[in-house]
């Protein structure tokens, strides 16, 4: 049994959990919902075991490092953080329809990871730093919170479209103002961790290259993302924006997150080691 197999299985478990959440929502049944929760917990356990095992395996190969060093490993960790935050939200808000919109994202992350080289590579000199762990973990907590905000914004827009409250599918959705509030909570969490992620990245860059900010495309895109969510926060706190406007801005913010994460690899810059496995 090695980490790759566990993580491949986890991908399918997440797929199943997503399927069950959707079934539970569409058919308005409690049983598949409960099953979905336990499948998601099982998936999270597998995901955790896979990450730990991969860490151990890297030491057995004599190139020990935290499994956060390339696109494959970061996607696996991304799925893990989405699940952790989601399960917390499910517990707090006692609503499983959110799962139908969030767990598929974790499944997609894992499925996309499986398309990439999953061999354990030694760290190149630039990545040999304790800041690697702090930087990647904080960034991905931020990304995961934004992913969930994306899911809830989407729910909000679907719910809003059904103006007459006719659709039975939307009965089980949380109240509009609760979805709106949850989106906002997730954006605040994401913003805090994105800020810490950018800061740890800057401190690391200063210790590796002698500058804390260099307008490298990845740095710039993370700042663009930060600007967008800062706009959301100001619009909400100071101008009283809510509902649709916030949902659209939150989705735009997540598009910027995705571009920061994947799109930037097509542009030249220092972060290109995050690109497709060598």
């Amino acid at each position, binding site marked *: 049994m090695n980490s790759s197999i566990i993580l491949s299985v986890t991908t399918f478990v997440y797929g199943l959990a997503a399927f069950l959440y959707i079934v539970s929502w569409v058919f308005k049944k409690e049983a598949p919902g409960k099953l979905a929760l336990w499948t998601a917990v099982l998936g999270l356990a597998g995901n955790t075991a896979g990450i730990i095992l991969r860490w151990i395996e890297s030491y057995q190969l004599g190139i020990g490092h935290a499994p956060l060093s390339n696109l494959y490993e970061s996607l696996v960790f991304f799925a893990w953080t989405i699940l952790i935050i989601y399960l917390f939200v499910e517990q707090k808000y006692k609503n499983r329809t959110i799962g139908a919109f969030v767990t598929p994202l974790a499944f997609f992350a894992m499925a996309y990871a499986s398309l990439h080289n999953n061999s354990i590579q030694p760290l190149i000199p630039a990545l040999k730093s304790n800041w690697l762990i702090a930087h990647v973990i904080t960034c991905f907590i931020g990304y995961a919170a934004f992913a969930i905000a994306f899911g809830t914004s989407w729910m909000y827009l679907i719910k809003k479209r059904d103006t007459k409250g006719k659709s039975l599918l939307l009965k089980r959705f949380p109240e509009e103002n609760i979805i709106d509030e949850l989106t906002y909570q997730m954006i605040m969490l994401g913003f*805090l961790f994105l800020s810490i992620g950018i800061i740890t990245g800057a401190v690391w860059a200063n210790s590796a290259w002698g500058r804390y900010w260099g307008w490298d495309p990845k740095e710039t895109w993370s700042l*663009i993302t930060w600007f967008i969510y800062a706009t959301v926060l100001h619009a909400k706190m100071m101008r009283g924006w809510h509902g649709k406007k916030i949902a659209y801005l939150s989705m735009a913010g997540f598009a910027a997150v995705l571009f920061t994460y994947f799109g930037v690899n097509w542009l030249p810059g220092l972060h290109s080691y995050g690109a497709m496995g060598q």
Partner: protein
Amino acid sequence: MTKKTNSSDTINRVWKFFTSVKLTVVLLLSLAVTSIIGTVIPQSGTASEYFHKYGELRYKILSFLDSIFDIFDMYHSWWFQLLLLLLTINIIICSIDRMKTIWKIIFVKIPPFNVSTFRRLEYKKEFSESSMPDELEQIYKPVISKSYGYSRIEQTNNGFCLFAEKWRWTRFGVYIVHLSIILMLLGGLIGSIFGFEGFVNIPEGESVKKINLRNTAEMHLLDFEIKCEDFSLSFYDSGAPKEYRSSLVIIENGKPVLKKDIIVNDPLRYKGINMFQSSYGTLPPKEVTLSFTIRETGMEYKKKAAINKPVDIPEGLGTFIIKDYSNSAGFKGHNIGEAFMGTLTQQTGKQVNILLPMRFPSFDKMRKGDVVIAVASHNHRYYTGLQVTKDPGVWVVYSGFILMIIGCFVTFFMSHQRLCIEVTGKGNHSMVMVAGTSNKNKMGMQRKIEILSEKLNRLLP
């Protein structure tokens, strides 16, 4: 109208303009959108790089735009800096404007409470207890003062009001964030005025005092020398680089004062100047060992040769001189790696240029001459490439970083919470009302009130 009121009118208008959150939203989105340009067009390239990338026509258009908007170095352009300046003014003026009221709220001697505002709240909990108000007062007071920093009791006609609050100061949170941004921008400004960013290549065994500044052709003279005693590199089995290491010595007034091996992510810092491992390269060796194989006798001779110093070929076959070295020589359009270039002068006086690649020791056989020349061995000589920077603003920026994290946490997850418990005696029992407000996260406060009222209800059987 006098002139004075006119000018104060203008000031008022300008002030109003900068207190607008609309302006903040516009500036943030403008910064977000315009920042994209510099991630698509490579920044600070040379003219020939742009020409090569874009072709003549597009290059002409872009360089015209560059002459006005500095799009090849947009993050330092006048208009981008102007956006940042406007944002800074916006942040400062907004903060000052709101601070005036916030200050009065935060620094009150006795926090004002009004029971009727709490009674009017939509969300409150009410229940009855069989105890009398003065009994309840003794029970509730310690519970509340445990989790609320401030509490006081006001007696009413037939009961009491317990007011409590905590985290009044968190109303400052957002201004901590704003201050952190000002500090970061200020630190950046200090760095760009009083600091520098440069690079220098130092051959092993040599020392330098002057470095090249980036983005200008200027040199900068350090007040000490940097000596590179040794450079080494190592690889993983896969061929990927494992470590670049330079042994550096700082020499001041001819005396070594500091010695350190630097690797990527572990720089040397001395007198506010930082030296980072950033690149390396190979240098032509000073001396090589040549081998001469004489075709007629089959004898092989080895001889040491210095660059640009002719050596006599054994058995009187002329002289040979090494003239050049390249770490990636070309031969018929192929890169053949490290190679030496030399000239053979035969006894007849005829001169032949010879290429001696390290990877192919019998390369010279192809020439079919009287003697086959090869480089038997040479010592690698490296130079280390250092990034040399000075940034006195970095600590200002870092303190901004810390404040940003603290400020965001306070702003998002802490709020000024106010609580009121009103107990009214009614015959042999009491009515209890629990209500509370917070300046943020109202839903969270509702849950807190719910939990608290349940807790208070359970205190008595």
